[in-house]
């Protein structure tokens, strides 16, 4: 056997509606990678366009009723399954992180492990957050008055753009999924590989098609279209600190979206139940205590 086997470099594509597609615009961009790192070839990723974002929103809207309709217990199992499948592919993700972020193999592996643990943490909340955020309200009458959080719908997310490309991505996306929202997410522009590969994990973890839609490319180009899109219900600007995010907020207000502002520093998007409950709507029902 010859030692010089020709490698099979991966085409990094968008993940929309459960399918791995090239950008409709046909564009790609070169992802900067560390010379001599685990990925020897030049790597290109698809450069998503506004029409890819539009298609992603359509896919996400179509997936809302199914994903929101599953029980919290079931959603938790699916999110836990993501952690299981991701755990089996730690080496690949560590390689991609090391190559595109220029960090050591040990640091990359540590980041993957933290991301896996974070999926498990959020998976646990899926059948518990309602008990914490919901309430039985005291009312002056013979009624039960119950408030429960329900998913908002389609959430557009701008993933963190700095270091920690996989962990930042999971910190942004996982909490939105817990309550049953579907997501259109713009990944890390400089280091999109881990997020695009995470699409492969999601596709094989019983996450229904369209629940998570991953775009790579320029957030500055795509974000305004998502902010103004009338069929997007909420906007998480977590990684938008370098964009004109005030303008995005103003645009989003036109269609009454919920908007989370950017966060910076290593604790940006740190695990929190608030990130779950922010993307919910409170439903209150009255029910008679009894008819005598």
């Amino acid at each position, binding site marked *: 056997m010859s030692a010089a086997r020709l490698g099979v470099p991966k085409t990094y594509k968008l993940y929309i509606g459960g399918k791995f597609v090239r950008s409709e615009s046909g564009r790609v961009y070169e992802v900067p990678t560390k010379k001599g790192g685990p990925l020897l070839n030049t790597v290109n990723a698809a450069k998503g366009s506004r029409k890819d974002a539009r298609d992603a929103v359509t896919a996400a809207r179509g997936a809302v009723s199914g994903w929101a309709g599953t029980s919290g217990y079931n959603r938790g199992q699916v999110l836990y399954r993501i952690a299981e499948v991701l755990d089996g592919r730690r080496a690949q993700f560590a390689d991609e992180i090391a190559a595109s972020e220029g960090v050591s193999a040990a640091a990359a592996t540590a980041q993957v492990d933290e991301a896996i643990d974070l999926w498990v943490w959020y998976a646990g909340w899926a059948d518990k957050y309602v008990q914490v955020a919901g309430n039985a309200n005291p009312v002056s009458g013979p009624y039960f008055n119950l408030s429960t959080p329900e998913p908002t719908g389609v959430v557009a997310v701008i993933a963190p753009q700095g270091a920690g490309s996989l962990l930042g991505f999971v910190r942004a996306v996982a909490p939105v999924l817990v309550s049953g929202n579907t997501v259109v997410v713009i990944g890390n522009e400089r280091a999109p590989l881990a997020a695009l590969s995470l699409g492969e994990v999601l596709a094989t973890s019983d996450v229904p098609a369209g629940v998570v839609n991953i775009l790579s490319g320029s957030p500055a180009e795509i974000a305004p279209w998502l902010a103004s899109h009338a*069929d997007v219900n909420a906007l998480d600007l977590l990684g938008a600190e370098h964009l004109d995010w005030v303008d995005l907020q103003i645009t989003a207000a036109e269609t009454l979206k919920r908007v989370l502002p950017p966060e910076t520093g290593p604790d940006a998007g740190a695990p929190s139940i608030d990130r779950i409950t922010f993307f919910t709507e409170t439903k209150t029902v009255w029910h008679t205590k009894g008819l005598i």
Partner: protein
Amino acid sequence: METTATGSTAIAPASRALEVIGGDLTEKALKRYLEGIAGVDAVGLEARAASLGTRSIKTTSKAWALDKIISLIDLTTLEGADTPGKVRSLVAKALVPDADDLSTPRVAAVCVYGDMVPHAVEALGRAHDADAAGRINVAAVATAFPSGRASRSVKLSDTADAVAAGADEIDMVIDRGAFLSGRYGLVFDEIVAVKEACRRADGSYAHLKVILETGELNTYDNIRRASWLSILAGGDFIKTSTGKVAPAATLPVTLSMLEVVRDWHRLTGEKIGVKPAGGIRTSKDAIKYLVTVAETVGEDWLQPDLFRFGASSLLNDVLLQRQKLTSGSYSGPAYVTID
């Protein structure tokens, strides 16, 4: 042959066939004529349809196309669960497709089952008057739609009922079983008889659309023959499908029917309408049809008297595209009605 019109007994609407085929209009002559029509080059047809579908229609052309599509729509509800209330809301949408933008044109017609015609006429009110600006027609499906499996007398009274109730257009289905077993005379007679049943008390005729149900005809050759047969028998429109059989309207099928219409126009100078129905759900698809019509028979045909879309969900998609063009940002299904 028992009933096919001959020179002496021909019913008026069969006059086209008499002129083209000749005085001796027997089943044998009809069969010889239809089977003498050249076959369809299926590969060429599909390639032509595919190439017509690649045109890029943008900005002002797209705005024009979207308004044109709306004005060509037969807004349709053909469900067993239809109620007078459902028909009233359909009519309301036909009159004002987008309440947020009153510059949106009205659709061409509403298409309902025969028993719903009175409700549609009543709901349309003055918009159904003969001289009304932005008049909306009422089309009724008849002849035991969608299967067409009923006796001749049932089909005829189905048609006459709808016309008496005020339907302007009748969408009839052909007997596909008879057509596929080669009994062209039977199909021909039925169309002639239904056309006669479309006659109103004042002697005018309701427009007759003949549904070929192309999804059941299997080959492009059959579709071409059925198109000729329908035109010869007196159809004003030829329509692809009921919408109840898959595949419904496709671009190659519609193209082949348009080619027959073009040939008929060359032969006689008479303009026959075409209506693709079923399966056209997006503006993008509908624009491909507009391009195909303009390139095959000419832009003359892009008017409600000669081209229609049979559709229900298409209108919402066109409205969303229209809102996108007006506002500059993407709209969503929450901004159009739930039908």
